[in-house]
């Protein structure tokens, strides 16, 4: 009973449908970014609260990365930010908010507590999270499948630090015999101290640690602790600090005229920050720390630092900035290979990361089965004329070490 007329209509409709399908085909099943919407990367950092200073430094690193690198992703990218207010428990809510906002990759969350908290939300939503800074070994030992960390765990941090300390004495030919460890009693300080205790003898360091003195993160006066350290008569003072306590320690050392052969912070943050060198001036000079740092000899690093100095003339490109910038390098690299904004595709791309040209010192960025990059290097820095300069390893050193240090009263 089918008539020609009816067939004509159906055919016309069929043609119309085919035409419509042909026109809409590019949009059907294509990822969000291909429809003109950017891929969203969520960034979780403690930009207010007690960790605001390093959190904001990290933010500058991400913002610089967003500005310089976004185009390399090969698709529109948008960065969305969330503040944990330095409260560890806020990591989860921040991650969930960003995921709800449409973020398919997260970067953060600086401190261990917030990172673990955020990682749980990421794990549930199957959205990859790239840990820029947070050193607790447990982060990659919790069994998270979506987590990738481009920052050394405390054990690696200490391993690299001890290697650099041994290099230093081999290079200068001056060998201290004893050391006293002065450390902040927080997650980080405990982790590094535990690492030193575990590795010191194993790595055959010919220096005896004669005492270990801890203090509260919120301590406003470290005169007693510094006096106790001085009383040990140890050749070396090894402080594991944040920035404010590092300033307190130096001021107290000057006041007590405490002049050991050297001050070396094994794996310690703080003394390379601008706040430290501004506050301590010449007395902060010759303070050494062994930390993961940028490779000052690479052209890419030089260009990046030049751009940073132009963008933030009153700030310093340091560890927090560098690793956060590098997180963007990794994210962009993964997106360029995934060519998709889908979390699973980004996850797959992150797993096969092999980024050779990057700003921080170390080998190619790769992630092992636990999501840890094992190729992060460590350098020895020494403040000279209020600038943290690499004095080791020799292959990337830009200055000669000053050791033993000049007594404070002779500066």
């Amino acid at each position, binding site marked *: 009973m089918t008539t020609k007329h009816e067939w004509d209509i159906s055919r016309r409709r069929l043609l119309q449908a085919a035409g419509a399908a042909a026109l809409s085909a590019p949009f059907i099943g294509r990822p969000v970014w291909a429809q003109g919407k950017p891929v969203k990367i969520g960034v979780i950092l403690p930009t207010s609260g007690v960790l605001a200073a390093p959190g904001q430094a990290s933010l500058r690193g991400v913002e610089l990365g967003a500005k310089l690198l976004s185009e390399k992703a090969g698709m529109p990218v948008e960065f969305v930010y969330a503040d944990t207010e330095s409260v*560890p428990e806020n990591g989860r809510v921040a991650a969930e908010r960003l995921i709800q906002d449409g973020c398919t990759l997260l970067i953060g969350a600086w401190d261990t507590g917030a990172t*673990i908290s955020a990682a749980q939300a990421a794990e549930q939503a199957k959205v990859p999270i790239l840990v820029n800074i947070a050193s607790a070994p447990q982060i990659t030992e919790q069994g998270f499948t979506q987590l990738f960390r481009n920052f050394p765990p405390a054990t690696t941090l200490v391993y690299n630090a001890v290697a650099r300390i041994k290099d230093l004495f081999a290079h200068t030919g001056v060998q201290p015999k004893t050391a006293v460890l002065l450390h902040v*009693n927080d997650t980080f300080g405990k982790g590094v101290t535990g690492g030193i205790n575990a590795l010191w003898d194993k790595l055959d360091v010919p220096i005896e640690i004669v005492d270990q003195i801890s203090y509260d993160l919120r301590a406003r006066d470290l005169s007693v602790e510094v006096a106790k350290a001085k009383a040990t008569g140890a050749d070396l003072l090894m402080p594991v600090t944040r920035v404010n306590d590092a300033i307190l320690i130096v001021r107290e050392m000057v006041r007590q005229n405490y002049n050991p052969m050297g001050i070396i912070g094994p794996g310690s943050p703080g003394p390379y920050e601008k706040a430290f060198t501004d506050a301590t001036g010449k007395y902060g000079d010759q303070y050494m720390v062994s930390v993961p740092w940028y490779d000052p000899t690479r052209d890419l690093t030089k260009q990046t630092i030049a751009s940073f100095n132009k963008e933030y003339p009153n700030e310093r490109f340091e560890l927090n900035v560098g690793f956060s910038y590098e997180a963007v390098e990794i994210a962009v690299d993964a997106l360029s290979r995934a060519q998709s904004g889908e979390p699973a595709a980004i996850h797959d791309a992150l797993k096969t990361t092999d980024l050779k040209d990057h700003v921080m010192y170390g080998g190619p960025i790769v992630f092992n089965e636990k999501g840890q990059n094992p190729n992060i290097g460590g350098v020895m820095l020494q403040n000279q004329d209020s600038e943290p300069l690499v004095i080791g390893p020799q292959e990337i050193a830009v200055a000669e070490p000053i050791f033993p240090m000049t007594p404070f009263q002779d500066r």
Partner: protein
Amino acid sequence: MTRTLPLAASAAALLVFGFAPLALSPYWLSLLTIIFFYVCVGQAWNLMMGYTGILSLGNSLFLGLGGYVTAVLASRYGVVPWIGLPLGALVGAAMGVVIAWLGFRFSVRGVYFALLTIAFAEFFRLLFDNWDYVGGAGGVFLPSLGPDESILLHLRGSGLLFYYAFLVLAAAVTAISALLVNGRHGFFWRAIREDEEAARALGVRARSMKILVVAISGAMTAVAGGLFGLMNGSLFPDSMLGMGMSIEIIIAPIIGGLGTLVGPIVGAFFVVPVTEIANDVGQHVGIFGLNTFVYGVMVFLVIVFLPEGIWPRLRRLATRRQRPDETDGGSDA
């Protein structure tokens, strides 16, 4: 009528929140979870301060103890939270008894009792900071579950699980509080709050009743702390036992309305979203610390214009529109 209305309202609220996950994203569920958490700890504190007039500024101690007992047992010995949480509650209650007995035995009252609770909380914070058995300042970390391990048995896993866990706990804590404050204990506690000497003269065993309320508050807060630790996956002395947490615990009931059962609920539903909005505003504007300022201003406005709390004002407005002599009675004494 005065008893059926609150019951019907509670049942309706439970029904709505029970089905809310069908309509809400994980983020909103997460916010509601935090709200329910503050309902739990707020109700517990409200029993002490709102109904009995005992000022504690150290309730984070109970929270931390409950959290640590549950987490340490789980992470070190594989003890499931179904055992860890009640044990945490027992420890919280026992600590409440110790503090209350010490305080009330020597007639430590008012702000002096508050100082005592702060001293205990700070002592335990410092103790835990330096006690390697509980991870010290480095904290306790709970490993994520393996594929063969039961989520329900170990109470670990998705945000949805904790949403329901805190919903049930908030409902239970509120129901227990309602039973207590509407029973003999509630009348004794209120009598002590109004005039302890007069209550004693009438035969109320004031010290026992005060010790009891601190113990109950401690147990409730400890269970919430246990679940809170399980949800976060890591615990640190500073965030669990610190003064900051103690202050956060008391804000919701103060803003919502002290000495009422609905107050801590209304307060939590006000404070948590305001915090989130303030955070969002600060982030979008890009001014660091603006979130804290916005939050502070909003809390300040509530305190200035609604000094008795949000719920008592709402209740008064509602009752005025009904009959001048009608009150909501019963459940919200």
